[in-house]
């Protein structure tokens, strides 16, 4: 089959690889009909997440049709149309029982590697380095889905792929980022990063009761798309100002936003000396993250507020303002999304017309054009916001 493979730093190729096979009774094989490139794929391609190997098949946002299943998969039939959540969850451990599926205790066969870096392991994730299991991803014609009786969500034929594809990751991730903010009505929420997750987080914050939502980015076209599709959204382009925390203070009566969502993660951009410092330290592998967005989110948040982190971080960050967090009583909430928990309720919201996630798609390419898709997305060429690949 054809599959998008990581072939080294800043290098992606669509190659011929063997077809996946059923390895365990609870596996299914899914023929991919749509798959997307995620911002966190860029962290892998750019070489900031350790333990990538040449030939790793990328991709954790995908959907398709069940073509084969193991004996232990009772709830799916061959021919079913499914969206697959990016974390792999067993459904039986303590974390899964509490719907903390990105923390499944059984699905990372490289758990010890993850424990060395993070203390404890997370769930396995499709196409997302060997730290999270070394599972082949879904930017391919076929994928093996372990624990297929737990993860995949069946969808009606009446719903177009693009309407439901983003239930696999970015829509639940953005929604969880907003849910972390404990919104009760009347809050001001600031969101760093107007990529797809940031845009969904902003839209979700309104859904959950925020009164004002301010989205921050450096690309006017991303902010424009967000304003056109999320009613009432306010935006800031940080390249036009010298201090985001000061600007936020001034537009919130001096208080700061009640909650701040970091939808940027470890490859933040900025201008100024602190950014140069981060870049140098990251290039010298003295830290794995560039933490400008997270630092700003912390410094901007009102006293006693919530900082919600759904942007991806890999390891270690320098100059972390813990004094601000402690003295001002901030709550930090973070996590890879527990996608399984959100898929059904969000599908209902899509069917009811409360959310239409299709607005973020700017590019539709064939699977063989994946490398071009990565280039467009990474360098924000041609006003690229989201690339969907069709095998």
């Amino acid at each position: 089959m054809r599959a998008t493979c990581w072939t080294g730093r800043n290098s992606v190729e669509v190659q011929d690889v063997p077809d996946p096979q059923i390895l365990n009774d609870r596996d299914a094989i899914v023929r991919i009909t749509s798959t997307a490139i995620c911002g966190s794929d860029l962290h892998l391609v750019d070489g900031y997440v350790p333990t990538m190997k040449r030939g790793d098949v990328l991709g954790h946002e995908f959907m398709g049709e069940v073509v084969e299943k193991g004996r232990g998969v009772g709830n799916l039939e061959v021919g079913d149309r499914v969206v697959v959540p990016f974390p792999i969850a067993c459904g039986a451990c303590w974390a899964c029982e509490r719907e903390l599926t990105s923390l499944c205790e059984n699905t990372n066969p490289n758990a010890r590697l993850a424990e060395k870096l993070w203390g404890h392991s997370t769930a396995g994730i499709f196409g997302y380095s060997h730290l999270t299991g070394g599972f082949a991803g879904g930017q391919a014609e076929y994928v093996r889905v372990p624990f297929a009786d737990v993860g995949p969500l069946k969808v009606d034929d009446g719903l177009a792929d693009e309407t439901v594809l983003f239930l696999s990751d970015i829509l639940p991730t953005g929604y969880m980022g907003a849910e972390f903010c404990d919104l009760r009505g009347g809050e001001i929420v600031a969101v760093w990063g107007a990529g797809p997750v940031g845009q969904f987080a902003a839209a979700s914050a309104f859904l959950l009761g925020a009164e004002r939502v301010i989205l921050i980015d450096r690309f006017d076209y991303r902010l424009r798309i967000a304003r056109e599709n999320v009613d009432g959204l306010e935006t800031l382009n940080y390249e036009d100002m010298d201090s985001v925390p000061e600007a936020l203070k001034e537009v919130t009566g001096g208080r700061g936003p009640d909650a701040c969502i970091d939808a940027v993660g470890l490859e933040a951009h900025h201008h100024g000396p602190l950014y140069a410092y981060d870049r140098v330290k990251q290039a010298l592998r003295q830290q794995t993250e560039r933490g400008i967005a997270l630092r700003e989110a912390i410094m901007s948040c009102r006293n006693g507020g919530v900082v919600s982190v759904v942007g991806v971080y890999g390891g270690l960050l320098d100059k972390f303002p813990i004094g601000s967090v402690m003295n001002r009583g901030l709550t930090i909430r973070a996590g890879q999304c527990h996608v399984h928990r959100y898929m059904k309720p969000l599908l209902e919201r899509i069917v009811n017309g409360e959310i239409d996630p299709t607005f973020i798609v700017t590019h539709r390419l064939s699977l063989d054009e994946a490398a071009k898709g990565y280039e467009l997305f990474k360098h924000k060429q041609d006003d690229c916001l989201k690339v969907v690949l069709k095998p």
Partner: protein
Amino acid sequence: MELDVRVRDKDPLARFLGWFSVGLGTAQLAATKAMCLLVGARTDGAAPRVMRLLGARELTQGVGILTRPRPTAWLWSRVAGDALDLGLLGAVAVRNRKARTAFAIANVVAVAVPDVYESRFLSRRSGPVRSAMTIHKGVTINSPAAEVEQAWAAAADLRALVEEHGARVSFAAAPGDRGTELAIEFEHDPPAGDLGTAVQKLTGNDLATRLADDLRRFKQVVETGEVTRSDGTPDGHLLANHLRQRAAQPQAEVTR
């Protein structure tokens, strides 16, 4: 209650200094002339012979520190060694007047600080020498104790490994209705101390590592009915395989 887990006399700093001695001694013996050049000494005459003697001394001290459970005397011998090294380097500096010698002196001074600190620290230890560590390898399984014990009875290989090493197994209800804590407790006391531990780890015979792998797989089988396998790790969790992973892409030949 004081928890007796992984308690021992030797601390990470002593272990670090032991490995430092082994590394430096090996360099002095294996690359004698390079080390002479590095400290600004001559590569002919008596200097290489002295360098080799010092290397043998370092190596002996390193092995002593790593193999003894409470290596107080060996640590003090490092302090004495630092003093001797400083004297010799002083003589080299007077004769050759090279910047590299000053750099070498600075390095000896830098390592003499933790040497003195650790020697004094270990000198204050009294009471019986604690060489062995009690290690508990535990895993929490989301099932009632009766089910876990039943699965344990069926896990013949794992039980044989545990019995072979005289380890003790216990099952306890985890607090807060979290299932069952399965704990395997054993004394870790390899014949040659930390050197022995390193050898065991390198040869894959380290009991703690084997148990960690096996308990993870045991939990997977009890909770999910299967051992989780990925494309990069098709055999399931084994620490020994972590560094020789395949690429995460489907393999043409697979075993079910």
